[in-house]
């Protein structure tokens, strides 16, 4: 068993050697500079996609490669490491019975294009990532808070946000 920081834990696979992952190979042919990195994780290859190209990549995967279903979009905060955030796209293809994971690395303050133009179901997931991490999605139809109240300050799932919140009690609000 290997321990350590995430970059040392699993092998980093160079884009040239995908190990037979046909989705990654097809993607690499279509978008040669979109895949920045690839890793072997416990459930298959994980692809790191360039932030600017994530929506064309998603559209290609949905329309051509058959990944009609978006399982979820979520975020991971690696503070104080940089790049700080990772936006994770979990895709699923019913017809091929294959799942793929795309990751986009972001610095604080950087934005990503919204995937709602590809899947309508990305709407609430991106709202949740915005609400809990503070990552902005460009061209999202209604990027508002979804879990927290509309007037909440701060983004709770960030690592520098305390577990019990900033105040001792939220009972005596307005």
């Amino acid at each position, binding site marked *: *068993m*290997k*321990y*350590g*920081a*995430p970059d*040392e*834990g*699993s092998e980093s696979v160079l884009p040239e050697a995908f190990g037979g992952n046909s989705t990654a190979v097809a993607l690499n042919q279509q978008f040669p500079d979109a895949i920045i990195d690839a890793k072997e*994780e*416990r*459930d298959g290859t*994980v692809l790191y996609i360039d932030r600017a190209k994530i929506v064309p990549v998603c559209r290609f995967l949905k329309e051509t490669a058959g990944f*009609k*279903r*978006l*399982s*979820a979009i*979520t975020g*991971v*905060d*690696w503070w104080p490491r940089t790049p700080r955030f990772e936006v*994770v796209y*979990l895709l*699923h293809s*019913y017809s091929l*019975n294959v*799942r793929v*994971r795309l990751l986009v690395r972001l610095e604080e303050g950087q934005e990503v294009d919204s995937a709602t133009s590809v*899947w*309508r*179901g990305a*709407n*609430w*997931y991106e709202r949740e990532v915005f609400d*809990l991490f503070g990552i902005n999605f460009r061209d999202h139809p*209604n990027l*508002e*808070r*979804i*879990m*927290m*109240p*509309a*007037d909440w300050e701060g983004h*709770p*799932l960030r690592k520098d*946000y305390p*577990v019990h919140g900033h105040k001792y009690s939220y009972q005596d*609000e*307005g």
Partner: protein
Amino acid sequence: MREGYDHVASLDPEHELSVEDPSGLRFSGDGAAQARKMTLNMGPQHPSTHGVLRVVLELDGETIVSARPEIGYLHTGIEKECEVKKYQQVVTLTDRVDYLSNLNNNLCYALAVERLLGLEIPDFAQWMRVMLCELQRISSHLVWLGTHAMDIGAMTPYFYTFREREEILKIFEMFSGQRMMTSYIRPGGLALEPPRGWHKAVSRVADQLARGIEEYGNLLTTNPIWMNRTQGVGSLPVDLMIDLGITGPMLRAAGIKTDARKDCPHCGYEKFDFDVPTRTDNDVYARYEVRMEEMRQSLRIVRQALDGMPVGPWQADAPQVLLPDREKMKTQMESLIYHFKIVTEGYRVPAGSVYQVVESPRGELGYYVVSDGTAKPHRVFMRTPSFGNLQALGAMLEGILLADAVAVMASMDFVLGDTDR
């Protein structure tokens, strides 16, 4: 009151709703049609929303013009909480995410952590997990059936389904001491050794359930009122349903034969013989039929588990992860040290990430667990089926009658704990 409560985010971006105009009548736009519309708040407290869900409806008479669900009323920050607990402590949090199918959530988390650790689970523990998860599935569907019927107006099935569900909860209490939040499936195997006499108790309950399911079918399946209220109601084009993120029995009722137990084999499900029911009608009645058939198939799995249960240990062989036997802990020094270390520091999980999928009674349940090499998870994301299904509620409620809206919401079988976490 929170400041943002009265703010209804625009249903229609051109016509900003104002609080000073409670009747919802507006005299701009296209005159008569605009003047007829009424805003109705199906607020967080409502017997038919199955939890604290707020649906803001814009009505034209009895027809819903647009619907906007608002969630977040049950958000308790479970995902944040998971990041400060050790891996074994997170198990009790996972119970409470989807509080009607606790064991399925436990199973998903346990499988994810076991994949990160690289543990092999013995056959007996796997079969026991499958059996209990299928009993949990039946229990969840019993709640769905009872409340669904009650929403439509049929009061009787509720009492019958909860009578059967009581027997299942007694089984869970026998195994784990808890009726609902059992936390019985943990990374490494089961929480406790199965009690003596479990086989007889479970087979008696299985017989009772078989009779019960037949009884509910007799009450509802060919009931003209039931059929009138549920047939032809609540369809969406299948492609739109997939696009919006619906999973589970709703898709199976639309004709797509997909089930995580068959598609992503886990926990020994491939050794069991069961069918995945589908229908093509894609309405509330079809979803009812699919879930009834799912209950029968789950019962089939339970009986197979009872007949063919292997013998063996109920936990994996992993002294660094699992607490040692109590007697050994009191007599051997190494066991005492392991016990102390595991309880106080927790076990370190190798860095990496995994997305584990199981089939919850509501659809695809997935746990995305990210580990950074320490004893606490770095991130636990729960891809819950109710969140994905509820996204489609706005589209599904457009253009139908208000009375049918209740039937559609019940057929979606969402749980707000699952949605909001």
